[in-house]
């Protein structure tokens, strides 16, 4: 039993941190620009595919830097020529733009790299076991992923809290117009933030690609969970997104690990229920992928500003 708990915690943390890396970019974009970026997961996929393509020539680590830069460039172009043009028609138009953009990016990747998953894997030496627990070894790569995620959180936190750019971003969150009046070029700030958000998604792609397999459907499969992290975490709150992604990662992993059905739980509490009925036979494992959305609905009903946010979406 201990083994399950230890491993579930480790796996839950890893999955949570990966979710955080992916959604941290969206926290900035969604909270600051109010843009419900449906294409965020697509930039995550682009990050993985660019890392795969570059990795063949320049190796894993250079690709780790180059791929996010490439995607940031793409993000800047998308904001400059697409999003900015649609901005004045309001948030619904921006959302529709990103909705169409996700379609186009997913299909373009499918067009260029074909429909078979590409074999994008971490370099050999990273796959060796870092340590072995209860006879199961835990690869270095997973350790590296966690480290990068935590580093990313600290760096982002520092940037937002301590630097001038960070201050400008936080100010623009609530008083965008005023930041403009203070002489900051808000459109360029928006472009920078959007590109930076896409770069963060790409970085998550570079790291997550080998773990979660790189194939054209990876963005669609992940898609909505990203919004759950941002909304549950709270608008504009990086710390909130961090807690929310860990919470979702751990809850989902533990629900899978504890192979218990609703019937068993009810019986444990004293109800005499047939544990294999259609409703009672449902196991926590099958509820696991629903948990983020159950959390989303509950948070929006009872605490709309999320765990740490000050603003209601």
């Amino acid at each position, binding site marked *: 039993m201990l*083994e*399950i708990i230890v*491993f*579930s915690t480790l*796996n839950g943390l*890893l*999955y949570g941190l990966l979710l955080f890396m992916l959604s941290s970019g969206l926290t900035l974009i969604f909270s600051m620009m109010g843009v419900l970026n449906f294409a965020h997961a697509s930039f995550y996929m682009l990050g993985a595919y660019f890392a795969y393509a570059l990795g063949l020539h320049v190796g894993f680590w250079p690709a780790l830097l180059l791929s996010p830069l490439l995607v940031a460039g793409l993000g800047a172009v998308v904001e400059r020529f697409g999003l900015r043009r649609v901005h004045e028609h309001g948030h619904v138009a921006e959302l529709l733009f990103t909705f169409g953009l996700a379609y186009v990016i*997913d299909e373009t990747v*499918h067009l260029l790299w074909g*429909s*078979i*998953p*590409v*074999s994008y*894997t971490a370099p050999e030496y990273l*796959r060796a*076991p870092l340590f*072995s627990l*209860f*006879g*199961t*070894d*835990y*690869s270095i790569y997973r350790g590296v992923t966690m480290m990068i995620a935590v580093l990313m959180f600290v760096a982002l936190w520092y940037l937002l809290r301590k630097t001038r750019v960070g201050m400008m971003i936080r100010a623009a969150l609530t008083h965008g117009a005023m930041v403009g009046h203070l002489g900051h070029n808000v459109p360029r700030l928006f472009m920078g933030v959007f590109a930076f958000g896409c770069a963060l998604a790409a970085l998550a792609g570079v790291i997550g690609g080998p*773990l*979660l*397999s790189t*194939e*054209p*459907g990876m963005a*669609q*499969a*992940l898609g909505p969970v990203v919004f759950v992290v941002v909304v549950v975490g709270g608008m504009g709150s990086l710390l909130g997104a961090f807690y929310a992604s860990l919470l979702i990662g751990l809850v989902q*992993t533990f629900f*899978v*690990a504890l*192979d218990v059905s609703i019937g068993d739980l009810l019986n444990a509490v004293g109800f005499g229920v047939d544990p294999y009925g259609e409703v009672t036979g449902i*196991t926590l*494992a*099958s509820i*696991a*992928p629903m948990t983020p959305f159950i959390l989303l609905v509950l948070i929006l009903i009872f605490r709309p500003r999320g765990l740490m946010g000050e603003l209601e979406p």
Partner: protein
Amino acid sequence: MLKAVFKLFAVSLCLLSGLARAAEAEPVRFALIDPLTGPMSVVGQPALAQLQFTAERLNKEGGMDGHPIEIVGYDNKINPQESLVQLQKAIDDGIRYIIQGNGSSVGSALLSAINKHNQRNPDDRVLYLNYAAIEPSFTNERCSFWHFRFDAHVDMKMNMLTDWIAENPDFKKVFLINQDYSFGHTVSESAMRMLKEKRPDIEIVGNTFHPLGKVKDFSPYISKIKSSGADVVITGNWGQDINLLIKSAAEYGVDVPFLTYYGSTPGTITQVGDKGVDRVYLIAEYHGDFTDPEIAERQVALYKEKGWDYYPRVAAMLEMMKAAGDKAGSIEPLAVAKTLEGLEYDAAAGHLTMRAEDHQLQMPLYLSVLKDNMKHGAEGTDYNFHQIARFDADQATLPTTCRMRRPD
């Protein structure tokens, strides 16, 4: 009206470019309704490529009863409702042979739609040729005269898997892991039933279901398999669910055999790679050794031309249809169906018989394991499935509960 406009536009441009089609005997056309675009096209496109490749070869041998075989792809994006729209389009185009394989939900929709169509249109009936939807009920309680299945269903394959496990004394604990939908549950129930009959001493140490196509990280399941002390795993997973499962198993050093139905889905071998060697076992109607030189040569030709591997089951299906058409001396569905019933045919994989009682093809089955540096690697890699056991057709056969209503 709308269709006509598109057609007019296309045809006029054809004439414009001066390419006139050579006049031939009126072709016999087969419709493939499968996912051809979007992320799931990885399971639809190989079948289309194989069908076109085999049709070219069969047309050189005179086609089906003298008519050139033509394959037309209809994209259903693996969605049952879209499949019905495409079915109607195919029937509208005058096509009377419908081929499908991916998704038991699509198969179920097509089966009930085709039954109703034939009932409502006695003069232009349609045949449903199923090469991969292996839901047992299609050739049992829901069997239909208009449905022919060219792949062994879940129970037939499980019968062989459990035989192989039963013969191996050091298998004591079996772990079952499947996708949480009708197919996954069928595999799990079938495994438990058969293992209880053949080896009551074997303990089922795990029977887990995970949502279809939604799990991103299989490590929790792998740690469960590890802690259960299982020495063999049976899974019906396909697509991402098999890729991630095996990758996770290798990463965590879980060195037990994984007996799979769909270890050879296109993309799996590329994704899994060396992690699958000596770990992934496959129960299927053929293997990757390509001992028969003619088939080996076709594998190389097909991969070079279309980028997909040889799909033996789909090739055998079209060859049997040609044989049935030639024997019936007609391409009219009812006549072909009657000759197809009970037809015996020697394909690369061995002696095949289309059982008349339930239209379920009886075939030898092979258990194979993924090996490295094979003579003909799959998907351009050096890996392929090496045969380790063969089960004759009569070993693999199972009785049926089908009570088929035959047309007058």
